[in-house]
């Protein structure tokens, strides 16, 4: 196989597999009849996954610690979320704090 064919094969496998997982979740969720308690648990499970995505992407770069600047930016965002600041303020504050710390030389 040429390099190009291999690239296309890889892209198709990744795209088809990713779509299949999205669809499988949706189909599975729609087919089964869940009790109200299970329904609540399922919606909580999305929150659990998203918190894990947020925590790992705040702290890590690949398999290693991603540096203090980003942790500080996300920390400020967490504080502002707790204080019920508007979403836009939270987004901008996270970027500004992280950028300033890097600019000041703290990785």
């Amino acid at each position, binding site marked *: 196989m040429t390099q190009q064919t291999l690239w296309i094969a890889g*892209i198709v496998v990744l795209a088809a597999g990713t779509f299949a*997982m999205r669809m499988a979740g949706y189909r599975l*969720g729609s087919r089964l009849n869940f009790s109200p308690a299970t329904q609540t648990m399922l919606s909580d499970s999305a929150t*659990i996954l998203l918190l894990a995505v947020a925590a790992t992407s705040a702290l890590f770069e690949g398999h290693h610690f991603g540096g203090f600047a980003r942790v500080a930016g996300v920390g400020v965002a967490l504080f502002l979320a707790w204080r019920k600041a508007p979403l836009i303020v939270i*987004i901008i504050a996270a970027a500004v704090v*992280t950028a300033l710390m890097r600019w000041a030389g703290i990785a």
Partner: protein
Amino acid sequence: MQARFFSPLGKDVVKAIFLVCLADGLVGISYGSLAVAGGFPLWVPLMLSLLVLAGASEFLFIAIVGGGGSPLAAAAAGLLVNARHLPFGIAVKDLVGSKSLSWLGCHIMNDESVVFGISQPTHEKRKKAYWLCGAGIALFWPVSVIAGAYIGQFIPDIKAIGLDAVFPAILLALIFPALRKRRTLIPAASGALISVAAVPFVPAGMPVLFSLLGLLAWRNKK
């Protein structure tokens, strides 16, 4: 028409979604420019952005193949990173639409559209936020990859402008109200701890799945 369709969302949410799309666009520019600089023709990141539409797995694919790895091994690694879309699909089953629309609705499923979807107060708003964010990213992402291939070198480093902090920040801000409930906080916090502890030891994507172990701490109480 669009304005009316999305109007019940409120200006703040629409603005926040736009800002997230914009941030995604800047990441897309950097992604397009890195891929092309790494020796890929534009159609590789472009096809990935259109057909996969899940940033982290696309970066991983490009990094592995660019580093000399096999595209099929890269696809397998990307699929592991994307495995969380299965539980996401279960959680947003009522937002993706039915019949043929669900094909599109499923394709635009990602961290951002899911978090905007589940964080709205009413079903109508959940659906609209999910679709607006999902459609916005589905548009911004490939367009910015093309832009990146041409103008990437003129755009500041996304780390220098702190953009990498924006994604965890937006996720936290949007799920924060749900975390005020102990019923959700305890399993979510335990799950996140398990994930963070696992990161150095297992392949990318698996730690996030481990967070579902936090459900063991789940009790049907307020």
